[in-house]
């Protein structure tokens, strides 16, 4: 069996999750605090990947990033970035595709904190950034963990977007979910089963750990 698709899957999930965390914390903070008229529009856009077929997202990425089009051409000529059928393209598509899974838990975490915590810190002379670091984020640890794990697991599970924009280039864009599809097409059910089983066990374990931690079971066990 070839381990490359599995390793590529976890590399993609790790990179995507890391970048998503950096993007989602400020975005979720803004969404939970803002009274802007733009907010419903942004909220809708963030939630779109939940209902949109992944192939739609993948299709538009393919069109936008294609070197035959103005934007893709500009990226290619000026920045030397080729996003179609490349790992970079997969990362960007995955970030958008998994965005709601990271943003929603963090946003509801922020919203669940009483406003008086923030206000108490402000009255003490603390800046917004210090308040975020020392008061808000430490009090939504479970939401952060949920967001990180869901985004990671969801990236492992993606198929349509990856297929559209990445194709199936071994070592570059052929992730495990696509490898399974290829193996089934080639009637290699044994190999497909190995990949599937590994993905099944790993995602089950990750989610189980989250529920154990968030439910406080582990803490009780160690006490």
């Amino acid at each position, binding site marked *: 069996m070839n381990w490359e698709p599995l390793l590529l899957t976890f590399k993609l999930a790790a990179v995507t999750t890391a970048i998503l965390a950096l993007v989602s914390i400020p975005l979720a903070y803004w969404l939970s605090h803002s009274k802007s008229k733009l907010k419903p529009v942004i909220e809708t856009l963030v939630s779109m990947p939940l209902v949109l077929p992944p192939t739609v997202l993948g299709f538009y990425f393919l069109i936008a990033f294609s070197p035959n089009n103005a934007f893709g051409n500009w990226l290619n000529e000026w920045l030397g970035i080729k996003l179609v059928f490349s790992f970079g393209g997969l990362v960007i598509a995955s970030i958008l595709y998994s965005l709601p899974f990271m943003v929603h838990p963090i946003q509801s975490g922020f919203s669940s904190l*009483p406003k*008086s*915590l923030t*206000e*108490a*810190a*402000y*009255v*003490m*002379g*603390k*800046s917004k950034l210090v308040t975020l670091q*020392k*008061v808000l984020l*430490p*009090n939504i640890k479970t939401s952060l963990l949920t967001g990180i794990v869901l985004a990671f697991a969801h990236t492992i599970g993606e198929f349509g977007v990856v297929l559209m924009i990445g194709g199936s280039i071994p070592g570059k864009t052929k992730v495990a979910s696509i490898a399974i599809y290829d193996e089934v097409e080639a009637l290699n059910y044994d190999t497909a089963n190995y990949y599937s089983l590994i993905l099944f066990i790993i995602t089950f374990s990750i989610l189980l750990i989250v529920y154990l931690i968030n439910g406080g079971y582990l803490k009780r066990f160690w006490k």
Partner: protein
Amino acid sequence: MIQLDIHKTLKAVNGNMDLQLNLEVQKGQLVTLYGDSGAGKTSTLRMLSGLLKPDSGYIKVNDTVWFDSETKINLSPQQRNIGYVFQDYALFPNMTVRQNLEFALQSNQDNTIIPDIIDIIEIGELQHRSPNTLSGGQKQRVALARALVQQPKLLLLDEPLAALDINIRLKLQDYILKVRREYDLTTILISHDISEIIKLSDVVFVIEEGRIIKRGTPEEVFIGTNISNDLKLVGEVLKIENKGSEYTITALVQANIITIPINASEAEKLKTGDKIVITPKEFHSKIHKVN
């Protein structure tokens, strides 16, 4: 000294309410805002602390302008140095009691003040506990202690004792008096409890639908006269009894029930449930009805 003249339209459940306040607080005074919920008391504290922006007017504290709609000055809450005790205490659950106090230290402040405050408010045995494990009265004390760390010139207390039972409440009133003596603080308190107000405050502002309708000492406001007696018992009439020509009254004073003889003329003015102030005299106690 605080001078404040502000206007703000507040969105309330049943339409808009105009908050129009003009008040002055002398340095070192303890002032109480009294009124129904929704009258604009909390909004007043929020505007003083910079958490809510008035529509127009000015706020001046010791000749520093904190807010002025004409010159567009509006200091942020961070710049005002206010001690604020929130209704829900707002203790940070991720920090211990002591870390809560330490977080309130200003960047150039040394931390020797923390043991002092811990001593005064007597929270030494609580300092390594997490706020979630504290009782209401303990949380309240920690919140008061934390508000003092930054050595504010102005202390705002938003109904700090409302949720506590009577014995803890009496104890905390003593802490507020102690703190005020110790740090010479100008304090603004929101309270619904007349006995608490008479015990603690120098001046009362009665606020109704966004306007101050009465101001003065607690006696002037609630009783209508100044009482010279040092001992004042504030209570509620439970029972008025007529035994021949004599009347007795039974009243709940804080946690105690007392029965005292009164004049027929006084008895006529009272009914069960009235709030009263009793000023014990040598032979006969005098009863003042609280309006």
